[in-house]
């Protein structure tokens, strides 16, 4: 199943903090490493880089700060996690949050990430919709959004994805020299009676057919993988497929709902004990759910909706 040569970058974001992105990053990483894939995790969480504690290790001494301030190569920042095949590059409070990171530094980081010699590079973005966060999300081969069945999380996730799509479209139009058009129309959206991104896209397509093809291409390539965390009833699962429908109808985005994790106290206990959940509670229902959606992610498949 695995293409040994090609590196795969997965980014895990989703807008709201506290939905379980870091936990999910650590669990996916552990599962892949346990199944003999070479994995590096990168923590670029703004709110507080704490991926190390989910893996049960101390905060690494070196972090992305060394990369930005001293130019230490990214591969030299990877530390062992105690789990075979799994290493970690730690972020810190400065990493991607501040505007002080120059554009060129950001591009350099992306270049280094893409050159990392691992089968899987998994990036924990943390919360927020900062441009740097979104740009990091966009470099991934698989863009993964974590959401919980709760209004604020759902709304933040939607806006995060919408912003990501907008930036992506803007970037590709820029490549073709059309960036001004999209900015121009959006700034004068009242005049053009544009209410939202979808109408902006439709309006651009109607007005400029050559732009329409570029946009169609970009949008059809833009796939979001949804993970629903902390569900409390089987009714909640329905929210995953509903979000997929809403993203398609209102943004034209193809989303794949790959799986969910039931609300589980043992996850909370495991985090408190500072031990990797997938090793500590490998037989739990949640661990099986994580395995299932990680397999779906690898194969690009959706969750089979079969409820009991």
């Amino acid at each position, binding site marked *: 199943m695995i293409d040994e040569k090609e590196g795969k970058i997965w980014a895990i974001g989703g807008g709201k903090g506290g939905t379980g992105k870091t936990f999910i990053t650590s669990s996916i990483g552990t599962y892949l490493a346990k199944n003999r894939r070479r994995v590096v995790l990168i923590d670029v969480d703004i709110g507080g880089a704490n991926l190390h504690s989910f893996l049960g290790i101390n905060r690494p001494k070196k972090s992305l700060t060394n990369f930005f301030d001293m130019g230490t190569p990214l591969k030299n920042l990877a530390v062992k996690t105690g789990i075979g095949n799994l290493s970690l590059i730690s972020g810190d409070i400065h990493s991607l949050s501040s505007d002080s990171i120059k554009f060129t530094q950001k591009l350099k980081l992306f270049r280094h990430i893409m050159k990392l010699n691992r089968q899987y590079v998994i990036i924990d973005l943390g919360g927020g919709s900062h441009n740097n966060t979104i740009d990091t999300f966009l470099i991934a081969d698989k863009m993964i959004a974590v959401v919980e*069945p*709760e*209004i604020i999380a*759902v*709304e933040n*996730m*939607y*806006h995060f994805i919408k912003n990501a799509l907008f930036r992506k479209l803007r970037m590709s139009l820029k490549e073709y020299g059309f960036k001004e058009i999209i900015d121009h129309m959006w700034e004068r959206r009242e005049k053009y009676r544009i*209410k*939202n991104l979808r109408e902006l896209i439709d309006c651009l397509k109607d007005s400029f057919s050559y732009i329409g093809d570029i946009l169609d291409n970009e949008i059809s390539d833009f796939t979001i993988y949804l993970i629903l965390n902390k569900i409390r009833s*089987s*009714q909640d*699962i*329905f*929210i995953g*497929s*509903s*979000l997929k*429908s*809403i993203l*398609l*109808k*209102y943004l034209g985005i193809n989303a794949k709902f790959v799986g969910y994790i039931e609300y589980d106290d043992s996850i909370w206990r495991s985090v408190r004990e500072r031990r990797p959940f997938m090793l500590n509670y490998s037989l739990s229902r949640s661990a099986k759910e994580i395995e299932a959606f990680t397999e779906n992610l690898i194969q690009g498949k959706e969750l089979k*909706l*079969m*409820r*009991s």
Partner: protein
Amino acid sequence: MSRKENKKYFEILELSADASTLEIKSSYLRLRKLYSTDSIAISPIADEFSEKSRREILRQIDEAYAKLMVMLKDEQRKSKYHHKSLDSGKVSKREEKEEELKFSGQVLRQIRKKMGIHLYEVALDTKIRIELLNEIELEKFNSLPHEAYLRGHISNYAKYLSLDSEKVADDYMERYCAWKGGDKEEPE
């Protein structure tokens, strides 16, 4: 109308043109439920989701479903005709299967699960007690109500799953009567 000409309706139900009858039905039910209730999935687009647009979306979903059902009936008729006259192998196997299918409690349960519907959702919408629904699916014939009532319940449940309620009720009652005829050895 062929499947190709009905592409638009498949798209409204978020399906590809080779979708099965079951997929069409389950997608229809799911989307109808999403847009007719106040799901939190709607909240990000709440400002552009007026009552008017809700009605319009639901109308489109209903229309798509109705058109596709007509198309399926058409396909079925054609495949029957082919069967008789040409014995053509080009009949939709899926449709054939559905027609030959004998409904039982187990089959109903399978269909419901495939549609991703929970038993309590059926109970809420059909006003049939959840315990009774469970007994119907498990064919616990000795706990089921009198035939006259039972038939009504089966038929309602079948309608809820967008199945041919007559056929489902006939099939199910056949099984029920077979049990009743030979129930001498029932322990209770």
